[in-house]
């Protein structure tokens, strides 16, 4: 039995036909167009289908870490034998969600799956969730993120509050994020609050903090939730009142350990007595390396590290994570960053030297790097040209060739290099 209803049959057929047409135009490509069409001709489809999963709906949202947390949570639930419907991370707004549902729907619009785990964009989630009931809502954090989109972090908190307000059973929050703690204090009575966070020494090991708009003054204890007790490279230890487990992260970095704690705490809340600590730990450890963030690939005979920059916090953490003295860095900021002002508080001085600065915001980026004391060898706004020249240069004597890019510049780079995932 799945979610859906006979009344949407005609709309589903139209949606599938549109998807077929979209595929003819762009073979292999996913598209939001079918979702757009179905949302127009059958506006209730998304709401009704999301509410119709027999084992309920789990929503993951927040400024950053939601796609990793979603992947981890889905892996843990599947390891427990649950049939899970989930959305690809790029389909986390209304049209994309509908398209993702259509992708799996039968002719009546029914989607197989007992439980749905959906990553939801913090901006669109409040609208998508109108009229939809979730069992649990897991929130990752509130960061100074995409200010040109949301204007300020308070707006993000208010949108997340609307999403959290749809949770009937419980909300899972990051206890180190003061804004989320305040949000949890305003939930309706009877809605459980589950928490995760990091131990003080883990917090201390990130001298600039974890990037939350406002960090809580106190740390969570294992009695009160799932605590990241220790992080070293790709290994992390999660401790709660029940158990202590070691997991292997998809990439090095404390933020991945926090994502693992979020998924672990949420899975425990979903599964209740069925939660198996070792199944969860194995599932977490088997998550493949996350694409674009600290990902290593071999292209044109060179080992290349890709570093994705999505917001000031991830920018700082990822810059700090690049080995000091890395000789060849390509730094590319695309048109997705309309106004790079909010990246200025980030200290990129540890890069020392950047070989090429590229992307449509190349000169803005060069300006920012120069005031951080970074030497810029060359500014080449044409990204394809920059990537070609960067890879044509001889291998570095120190470190690997490292490409730091914004999401848009990442897509263009991957497409240019013919790498998979360029158009997901």
């Amino acid at each position, binding site marked *: 039995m799945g979610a859906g209803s006979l009344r949407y049959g005609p709309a589903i057929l139209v949606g599938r036909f549109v998807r077929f047409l979209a595929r003819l135009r762009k073979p292999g490509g996913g598209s939001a167009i079918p979702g757009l069409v179905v949302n127009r001709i059958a506006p209730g489809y998304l709401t009704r289908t999301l509410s119709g999963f027999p084992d309920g709906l789990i929503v993951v949202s927040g400024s950053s870490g939601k796609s990793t947390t979603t992947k981890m949570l889905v892996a843990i639930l599947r390891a427990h034998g649950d049939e899970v419907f989930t959305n690809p991370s790029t389909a986390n707004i209304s049209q994309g969600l509908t398209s993702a549902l259509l992708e799996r729907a039968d002719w009546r619009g029914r989607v197989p799956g007992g439980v749905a785990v959906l990553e939801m964009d913090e901006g669109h989630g409040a609208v998508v969730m109108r009229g939809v009931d979730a069992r649990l809502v897991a929130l990752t954090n509130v960061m*100074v993120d995409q*200010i*040109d989109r949301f*204007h*300020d*972090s*308070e707006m993000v908190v208010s949108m997340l509050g609307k999403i959290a307000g749809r949770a009937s059973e419980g909300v899972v929050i990051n206890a180190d994020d003061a804004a989320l703690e305040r949000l949890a204090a305003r939930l309706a009575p009877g809605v459980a609050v589950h928490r995760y966070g990091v131990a003080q020494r883990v917090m201390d090991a990130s001298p600039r903090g974890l990037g939350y708009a406002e960090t809580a003054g106190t740390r969570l204890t294992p009695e009160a939730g799932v605590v990241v007790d220790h992080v070293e490279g790709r290994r992390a230890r999660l401790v709660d009142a029940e158990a202590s487990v070691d997991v292997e992260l998809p990439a090095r970095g404390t933020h991945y350990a926090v994502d693992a704690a979020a998924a672990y705490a949420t899975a425990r809340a979903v599964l209740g007595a069925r939660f198996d600590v070792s199944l969860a730990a194995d599932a977490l450890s088997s998550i493949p390396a996350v694409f674009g963030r600290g990902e290593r690939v071999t292209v044109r005979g060179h080992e290349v590290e890709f570093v994705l920059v999505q917001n000031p916090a991830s920018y700082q953490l990822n810059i700090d994570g690049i080995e000091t003295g890395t000789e060849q860095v390509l730094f590319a900021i695309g048109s997705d960053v309309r*106004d*790079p*002002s*909010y*990246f*200025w*508080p980030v200290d990129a001085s540890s890069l020392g030297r950047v070989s090429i600065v590229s992307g*449509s*915001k*190349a*000169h*803005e980026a*060069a*300006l*920012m790097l*120069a*005031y951080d*004391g970074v030497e*810029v060898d060359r*500014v080449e*706004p044409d990204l394809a040209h920059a990537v070609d020249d960067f890879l044509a240069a001889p291998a570095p004597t120190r470190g690997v060739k490292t490409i730091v890019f914004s999401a848009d510049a990442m897509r263009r780079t991957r497409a240019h290099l013919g790498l998979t995932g360029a158009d997901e």
Partner: protein
Amino acid sequence: MTHHASGFTIVTLVPSLLDTNGDAQNAAVLAARLRWAGHDARMVAVEERGALPDRVDAVIVGSGNDSTLEPARERLLTMHDELRRWGTEGVPILGVGTGWELLSWGVETADGRTVEGLGVLPGRAVPRPTRATGDVVVRSPRFGHLVGFENHARDYVQAEASPLGRLVSGIGNGRDAGQEGVVMGWVIGTHLHGPVLAKNPAMADAFASEMAVRAGTTYEPGERAAVVDGYAEEARRAQLRVAGIALPA
């Protein structure tokens, strides 16, 4: 060329609450340009009065959120006497966004709050029907063409006699006044957020020159500044091109 033992000190006030858009980094821009010119210069982040250094050569007050207007005002209020004195003495002060608004007579928010300002600059901030977001170009008699980005929920009124400049593009102070910012001596308020001094080197150098004159020395932009200003020039051009704005000759 160093004029006094400790060199130049640029303070940025309450950056924990007033650096949402990287405006506080304007202090780092001034410090870097002075160093490139061969001077000693440092940026000092000051959260409350007790942390103020003995000598202050320039002041940056950046932009924050509406939810932190009151706490930011409380902290600035502890330095009210200093802000008035600096303003009177001619220490360059740059207020950006809500930082500027807090230096005004007062701020009225859309939800009906009125936050009393520090009264260092004339005028007040009043709600506008829609948020103003986008590229701004201002023709300033003192600093030439200023290029930047604005993102604010309020207009600025009652300071029409002393704007920073006339708008070439953008909303600026709003109310169809065609003006942006406010200036009183060397106290300057602007909506141009982020690193406005990096993007507008002429304005940065006017600040640096004034600081040097006040300290009894001189300022000539360093060689490094010429390279970096080349990036600024290209960034300005790219922004104007994307925004479809042609600068008048």
